[in-house]
């Protein structure tokens, strides 16, 4: 019973659900920002607006990996601990060898460049362990990545004896995290974040690789039967997410000139919250890094407005929790409304 269809088909003029939810969250951001400007003095100043972005570069970098992993319908809760591990390793590898009585001052004495490469490889190794259990053994990702999280942070604690390493470092160590673009307040980590998010945006919209990530999230069984090697893609994504955590870890260690085993506690949750705020679906197959970026700014507005209102920092977690649930409700409402 085929109905005769008009030959003219409408093409490409429909807003995709991803764009819709991103626009929706931008709307939410503008409203929240307006409210914050009303109640917090000087919130509207350009310097403050810039800070909202620059103070969160690390969450945004992590968010890129977490977004792609979440689009496949999986989680990466190991990124926070991976930052700590990589930071500590980058210090340990290039600390002078046998220079002191203090074990925490002695490292392997490798050149800084080698230390960075090795630390990044270890970060990707954590991702590879995640991938092995999730893609090959089909263990739920949330359990696996919480497990590797414990392993990574545990290793960092062993290497730092539960504290930190910050002595006998080469001069080059502090450069990456503190270098400024001449004549601007923009430091290297921010620039790296901008490059990464731009690349991720193009990657997500344009490449076959990214398209397959969405397909896997939308229907893993159909993806497999369409000839997509699901395990291979999951493996690459987890290694990529590990690499991003590694980059963040090295930059943070460089900024503070220390490898601290308790660094980046809870960052994995922040990264997850911003992806949710950005409209990435926990069911998989849906979301965008641009949305995640907007989500990161929303979280930043909320937390810094709260600080500006002299709310005790003790409220930060509660606030993040509330924001998370509001984000999920808003997402659900907006999409249902659109579908209905």
């Amino acid at each position: 019973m085929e109905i005769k269809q008009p030959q003219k088909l409408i093409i490409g003029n429909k807003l995709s659900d991803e764009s819709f939810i991103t626009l929706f969250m931008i709307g939410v951001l503008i409203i929240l920002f307006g409210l914050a400007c009303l109640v917090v003095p000087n919130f509207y100043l350009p310097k403050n607006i810039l800070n909202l972005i620059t103070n969160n570069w690390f969450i945004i970098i992590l968010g890129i990996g977490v977004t792609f992993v979440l689009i496949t319908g999986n989680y990466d809760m190991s990124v926070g601990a991976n930052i700590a591990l990589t930071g500590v390793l980058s210090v340990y590898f290039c600390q002078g060898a046998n220079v002191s009585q203090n074990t925490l001052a002695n490292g392997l004495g490798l050149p800084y460049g080698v230390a960075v490469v090795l630390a990044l490889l270890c970060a990707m190794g954590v991702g590879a362990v995640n991938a092995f259990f999730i893609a090959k053994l089909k263990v739920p990702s949330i359990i696996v990545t919480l497990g590797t999280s414990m392993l990574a942070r545990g290793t960092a604690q062993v290497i730092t004896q539960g504290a930190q390493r910050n002595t006998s470092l080469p001069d080059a160590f502090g450069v990456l995290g503190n270098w400024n673009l001449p004549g601007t307040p923009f430091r290297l980590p921010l620039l790296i974040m901008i490059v990464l998010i731009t690349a991720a945006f193009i990657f997500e919209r344009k490449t076959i690789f990214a398209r397959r990530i969405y397909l896997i999230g939308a229907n893993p069984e159909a993806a497999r039967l369409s000839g997509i090697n699901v395990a291979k893609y999951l493996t690459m994504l987890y290694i990529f997410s590990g690499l991003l955590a590694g980059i963040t870890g090295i930059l943070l260690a460089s900024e503070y000139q220390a490898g601290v085993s308790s660094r980046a506690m809870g960052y994995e949750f922040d990264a997850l919250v911003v992806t949710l705020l950005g409209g990435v679906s926990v069911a998989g197959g849906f979301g965008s890094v641009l949305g995640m970026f907007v989500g990161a700014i929303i979280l930043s507005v909320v937390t810094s407005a709260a600080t500006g209102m002299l709310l005790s920092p003790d409220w930060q977690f509660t606030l993040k929790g509330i924001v998370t649930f509001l984000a999920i409700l808003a997402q659900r409402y907006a999409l249902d409304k659109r579908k209905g």
Partner: protein
Amino acid sequence: MEPTENVLEIRNLVKDFPGVRAVNDVSFVIKRNTVHCLVGENGAGKSTLIKILTGAYTRTSGQILLKGEEYNPHNTRDAKQKGISTLFQELNVVDQLTVEENLTLGMEDTTFGFIRRTEKINKMVEVLNSIEPSIKPNQLVSSLSVAKKQIVEIAKAVASEADIIIMDEPTAAISESEIVRLFAIIKNLRERNVTVIYISHRLDEIFELGDYVTVMRDGKHIETKPVADVHDRSELIKMMIGKTVFEQYTPRSCESSEPILQVKNLSNHRLNNVSFEIRPGEIAGFYGLVGAGKTELARALYGADAYEGEIIFKGQKLKPETENAINAGITLVPEERRTQGLFTILTIRSNVPVMNMSKISRGGFINNALEQNAALEYVDKLKIATNTIEKEAAKLSGGNQQKVVLAKCLFADADLLMLDEPTRGIDVGAKSEIYSIIRQLAKEGKTIIIFSSELPEVMNICDSIYLLYEGCLKSTMRNCPEINSENVLHIVTGGA
């Protein structure tokens, strides 16, 4: 005992799905304390009817009277409370619990949340003991055979005073000797005031067990009569297939050419030493009932399941990997289009190219224009009814969804296209369109394999027919108008 009272009356029952009327104005009655058999080909509407009775589906219109009262269950539990229990193919027992715990599962008496040992438990155990004394109440259910698990479920239904027990192919997975035991129990149930609705593809069972038989076809009720009044199997088979009008199709012969596909001694958990050859341009049809191993064969050929044996395609031995099969030029339209074939939350545009992305991209980057043209081309070619290629696949009708899956496979430029139940659950119009697409493809030189549990479908479009029964290839024949469908049904129902 003369069973006279009607325990269940179905009046003008209708169930519509988008694009399909699965149950079409069905009316019949089931008499108390009888074994009432329900037969029909796949797609005849039996399952839908049963799902309405068990509360899984809501009817579109019509009336059902249970013991003279309006019956409208909200879910399986509700149906059970009202008196209709079901023995599903997927049994509802918990392996890790004991027999006794399973019997009372979901209806335990409790005091402050603690389970109390009551009369109810004793009664359950008693009923089980009277039906099958060899099952001990403290035994773990995991230690029981499938047949004994079924008996536990039957006992549970009897003890909870079910008026009707629906049995959906209970003999599909149990051994001969267990079948004998099960039948004895079923025959005994009428003494316990229980009516049985019995569904089976094995027609011999109907003569052995049934008091009445109802035949359904294409969603319609064909006939209900006492089994004693049915002459033989072929009378039933005739009612089941009806006067199928085969479209004039002259099967072609491709004997001369070298085979494109050679399968040698293929075996796995469901296949038993299957060997055959298919020639280029041939439309081959594998026919068999549910559980005959059609889907398993398709999946093995496609590299989606592990197997032993050899698959040689275009002279090259295949590896059991889907990626390898697609690259070699094999694609599959899977049985379950929504869960296995489609990305329902994505648009038509995104669905069409997934099996051959290199065709819409340059250097790993997707070219929008190529992607759009691909989707437009196939929407046009397969006449997919939509006003835009940006529509999510979920919002299309069954027939159009199937066309999207087909487009996906065609876009992969395969030489061998396999279709598993290509027209299941889609309406007659879309069905014939899909047939003509398949014929056109064969004309263009593609090789096609169809896996179907509908005989008219196979006889309608295939050049050669392969009959499967319980994982074995039982018979191979060229399709011709002289093929005796009764013989075919005889073979695929386990006849020698």
